[in-house]
């Protein structure tokens, strides 16, 4: 699953980030929290916070992960959702038109 983000998404994002970084020096941010005036404060915060949250959560998972049926039968985690409450429908060539049109069989 890693690395399947297409380049056509990454490129505009990278350009946006560069532009935002440059704008940081051109627009007065009116900082009034101590430290907020540090160059690219928000960019650094965003990047570091996100990274640390994800890596922290990864460590947390090692501590608390259990099999899906750990609470069974007193929980829904390992149960199949009852069919009566669903209307499963796959798109095939035959029903493509009708499903896009909104009608359900």
């Amino acid at each position, binding site marked *: 699953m*890693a690395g399947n983000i297409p380049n056509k998404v990454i490129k505009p994002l990278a350009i946006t980030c560069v532009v*935002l970084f440059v704008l*940081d020096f051109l627009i007065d941010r*009116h900082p009034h929290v101590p430290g907020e005036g540090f160059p690219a404060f928000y960019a650094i915060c965003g990047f570091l916070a996100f990274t640390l*949250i994800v890596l922290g959560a990864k460590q947390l998972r090692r501590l608390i992960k259990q099999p899906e049926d750990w609470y069974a039968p007193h929980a829904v*985690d390992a149960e199949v959702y009852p069919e009566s409450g669903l209307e*499963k429908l796959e798109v095939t060539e035959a029903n493509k038109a009708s499903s896009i049109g909104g009608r359900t069989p």
Partner: protein
Amino acid sequence: MSLLSPPMIYLIAAAVCGLLPARWRAALLLAVPAAGLVSVLSYAPGLHENVSVVGFDLVFVRMDDLARIFAIIFSIAAALAGLYAWHVRDKMQQVATLAYAGAAIGGVLAGDLITLFLWWEGTALASVFLIWARRTPGAMATGMRYLIIQVLSGVLLLAGLLLHFHDTGSIAFEHLGLVSTGTLLIFLAFGIKCAFPLMHNWLQDAYPAATVTGTVVLSAFTTKMAVYALARGYAGTEILIWIGAVMTLFPIFFAEIENDLRRVLAYSLNNQLGFMVVGVGIGTELSLNGTAAHAFCHILYKSLLFMSVGAVLYRTGTSKASELGGLWKSMPITAVCCLIGAASISAFPLFSGFVSKSLILSAASNEGHYLVWFALLIASAGVLSHSGIKIPYFTFFAEDSGKRPAEAPLHMRAAMIITAFLCVFIGVVPASLYSLLPYDVDYAAYTPAHILTQMQLLCFALLAFVFLMRSGLHPPEVRAVNVDADVVYRRWIPALLPALVAGVARIFSSGQSTATGIVARLYSGIERVSSPGAVLARGWSVGSMMFIVIIVMAFVLFANLF
């Protein structure tokens, strides 16, 4: 009380709903919130629908700016959920939805604590049927856990209000503050429904267990009624700032590794409540405006996210990230609506979260709560990670699961598109929301500095996501449950209970045999001394009796000398 007061409209509709044919019932779920909204807007500010019961003056409708904004958004949420649930034919869910929405609106309009208590328990009783409606053993057990905790909250509220009445002689639901045992109990009752840390587990346990449509309904009411109650009773209570800050942070980590996307959204809901609780704790006009505004926006985008994940569940039978991916190809409209919900909760400019969350952050920095302000900033990046990226990315993009579910039914798409429109409309025209807030608003959300800083925060967080995915550091979605604090009452106490019961029984039986042994010995002793010829049964001469009486009298005389 007038039959046309908002909660009564819902309750009467709930009562007759079961007697109507299926189509009518579905229509009722749309018509009643509309009628309820008209009723809400028809009340002038002040106390209405006063009823005197055994000496207590109950106020069923207290209309002011704070109550009104919550009653309005509850009505809108009920209508949108009604449209989303147009296909549902299950009477139980339809009746429960009407009764639940009515009770929640009754709760925010309640002018006294007894009325509040009635609606408070009403929401608990009505909403549990949305979980039981799934009709599986797991959902039954989950619903029972949910009900016990919700009723416990009501019992605490009742105990608190009795103590408070004893202390002050008043049942009015005005500012209470943490000043006595009574107000502390009421605070805890509100805290349970508001999912304070360590009181939060019912939320993540129950919401993913409800039906496809039930979760959308559940997400709107209970917790926001609690936020309203805190704003009414405990504005400016400083401990709420810290409770709120913890609430914004800890659910992020659980949301990040949770596989069931509806539980991810439940953790995310918990995190959003944190922002509102901080706003209540700061207690300035700006921060309370922020809490009300954020509750309003949050109900919309959270409903939208639950709707889009619900539509996926409805079409594929699963809401687990590990089983999904690549669905945008066959569900493009649901995907776009989900992205709008994700952008709104992440507070991108032009979306609703941007104009509401910033009120609370500004209030925190204005009042000098820099540490809390920083926590909220970190939490904002965290919101992006699980609600902004994880929900849409692992459902509609990421690795193709090969599933090609059909687009959501027309009525679900209509509900999602209307909700998405409202999220964008509020983001683009914030004045529309600001005019509903409890206090006058002097706040410009769209300044160059605010747009720049928010975009920097979010875009560099997105960049971090790309970096983590590319480098393979991002944790994969796997089928698992993650243990939270509820393990205490779901596993540990039940596991310890048999040993505890056996221990108590052992102590009891050994105590019992010791006691009977003592009694038996005493009895045989008495029998021994009083049997024929023994000490007590012997004949005593008058002389020796006189001698004993003289000794006793001498002792009494001696004792009286002192």
